[in-house]
């Protein structure tokens, strides 16, 4: 009897894996293998064009990073970008969601209107924003109307990254707004009622009930926000036509990886950089988890 059931279990297990195999094969081919291959490449000097060769170079690719000034510029730009964009878009998303959660007129209209930028392709958004920032564009036109001095927004290294930041905050916040909105509707009404009976005002209710209740969602939003900002590529690529200029101002980690991989065809070093980026993102996520957990204990 026991023998039979053991056989049966084995068979069931095999069937289970067989059913999962499409997913396993697809994930393995397109996720696991490329990751392993990238790790393999990062320890090699690779020449793909012409004579294909893989020369094991130990940690040379990683040592090279220390002297690469452009890498540190890219890392600094990316961190600066994340530090400004993630808090701003999270806050904006929370505020927008709270407004939409109130019983407003035309609520559905506003929901759709706010969500539109997220649905639009980022390439299109960049082009539209480049028109706005153009020397003869909308922004300068408006400034001129009020009598303020106009400016070459696209050509100045100091403001180029800020331009992308503004655009990205505006276009990603609605995505997180929807997530917040869903979470807000899960908070039981009775808690607010109880607080009202205790004499809490609107601000206190928001700060003491809404924000703590949303903590798990905030964690998710911040983590996804950071991963998204660290992977910034398309906007700065279109903005600078792939160069990361003016004066490296829009050079991000992923753009740098792209340049090394496809412009210099240095796959080994590019893989090492990608590896570094993955490590950085993982570290930040781990730190965040610790931070959020600690507060939970309190």
């Amino acid at each position, binding site marked *: 009897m026991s023998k039979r059931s053991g056989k049966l279990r084995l*068979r*069931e297990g*095999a*069937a289970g894996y*067989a*059913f999962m*195999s*499409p997913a396993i*094969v697809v994930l393995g*081919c397109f996720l696991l293998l490329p990751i392993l291959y990238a790790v393999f490449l990062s320890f090699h000097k690779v020449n*793909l*064009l*012409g*004579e294909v060769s893989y020369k094991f170079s130990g940690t040379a690719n990683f040592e*090279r990073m220390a*002297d*690469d*000034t*452009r890498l540190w510029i890219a890392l600094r730009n990316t961190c600066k970008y994340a530090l400004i964009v993630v808090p701003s878009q999270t806050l904006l998303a929370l505020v927008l969601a709270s407004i939409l959660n109130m019983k407003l007129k035309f609520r559905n209209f506003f929901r759709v209107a706010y969500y539109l930028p997220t649905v639009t392709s980022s390439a299109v958004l960049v082009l539209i924003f480049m028109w706005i920032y*153009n*020397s*003869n*564009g909308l922004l300068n036109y408006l400034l001129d109307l009020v009598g303020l*001095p*106009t400016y*070459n927004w*696209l*050509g*100045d*290294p*100091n403001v180029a990254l800020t331009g992308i930041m503004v655009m990205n905050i505006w276009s990603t916040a609605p995505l997180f707004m929807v997530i917040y909105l869903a979470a807000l509707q899960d908070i039981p009404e009775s808690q607010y009622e109880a607080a009202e009976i205790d004499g809490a005002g609107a601000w206190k209710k928001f700060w003491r009930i809404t924000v703590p209740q949303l903590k798990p969602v905030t964690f998710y939003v911040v983590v996804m926000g950071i991963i998204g900002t660290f992977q910034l590529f398309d906007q700065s690529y279109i903005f600078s036509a*792939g*160069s*990361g*200029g*003016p*004066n*490296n101002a829009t050079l991000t980690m992923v753009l740098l990886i792209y*340049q090394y991989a*496809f*412009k*210099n*065809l*240095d796959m080994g*070093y590019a893989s090492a950089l990608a590896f570094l980026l993955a490590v950085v993102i993982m570290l930040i996520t781990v730190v965040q988890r610790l931070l959020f957990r600690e507060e939970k204990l309190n």
Partner: protein
Amino acid sequence: MQKKWTGWAALMLTTAMVLSACGGSSGNNSGNASSSPSGSSSPSSSEGASASPSAPAENVELTLAGWTSSPEEQSLLQQVLDEFQAKNPTIKVKYEVIADQYMDVIKTRLIGGEAPDVFYLDAFEAPGLIEKGVLEPLDGYVSDDFDLADFETPMVEAFKGKDGKTYGFPKDTSTLALFYNKKMFADAGIANPPATWEELQAAAEKLTKKDGSKVSVYGLGQAPELARQMFMIQAFGGKLTDDQGMAAFATPEGLKGLQLVIDQHLKAKTAGQPSDVGAGWGGEMFGQQKAAMVIEGNWAIPYLQTNFKDLDFGTAEVPTVNGKKGTMAYTVGYVMNKESKKKDAAWKLISYLTGKEGMKTWTSKGFALPTRKSVAAELGYDKDPLRGALVAGGSYSTTWQAGATLPTIMNNFNNQFVAAYTGQSTLEEAMKLAQETANSEIKAGQ
């Protein structure tokens, strides 16, 4: 039993999926089977053999890749290709236009073994690809009919490798010339276009129009990038690279010419870049009459004539800097993929396109200037009122090329030059930084 079956079915399904997914790519190569006979390096009969019976009777399909700057130019090339196909009925040419990031696409396709048989190659990228050994040397194919001596020598030199072999033939060229707005010149009371850089600065002073504190018309439109400014480095005896291909432009001599560019923008405020007035490039800036002068190439002429019909403009040779004439020359050639399986047919195409007949049609409408002396003489561009200045520049021009390391140097130069151009750092600091960064990147990549 049923369970077992479903398990197997799922497994089979997966296997089928994977197999069909992997099988897709191999199908593309089968089309190459109709290649030329194995003796592909026996070029004796290939040239001028358009009607010769010894040509392979099988039909061959060639792919040709390039970029295009206008629909008119694309249809002109199609016309040349149609003529070629009419003469070579067994060869069919598939013309592909790569719209953006041309070199990235070509390199990636070369790696993947999916590159076109014949493709455009800018002279400035040529040393890098030649060094990698992915191009077919063409010396063995050249016959007397091709008339190699007819080409302008520097243009052919641009496609020679360090081994002395020729890897491509120039399809066309352009130098830079000074474009000036005749009406603005007349309004400002300037009779002739400036001949020296001092005259240019003085003219720019008169031509710049201000709208309050904002400049509405710049005297000169500038392009703060290496491709346009390399001759300014050389004007006072500077060099872009040393013998080892390392960047060496941050010398006092090299900076002197570049300082003229920066000063005119920051100090005199009589020159600006296209983005200062919301234009995309110099030609647009000039066409919209936001710059009275620009230094552009032949490509700007058809652009201005079609898009700004009312514009009355002339061209002149680039004003002398430090008493010396100087300008840039750009050339693009046709090269053959070494992995091509239809090399004989590919050579026929290249020799037709860069031959006298093909080049004449291709350059007849003035989108580009010919690189063959005989074609240039026949078309008479040296006497053309607009193109004469461009042709004249050919004799003293600096070819836009400097070894395999140029793309890295260019990237760093452009990035830092903008910093100096916008006044964020001095030219000297910026150029030193650019040179150091470029050289450390070159070293690390070796």
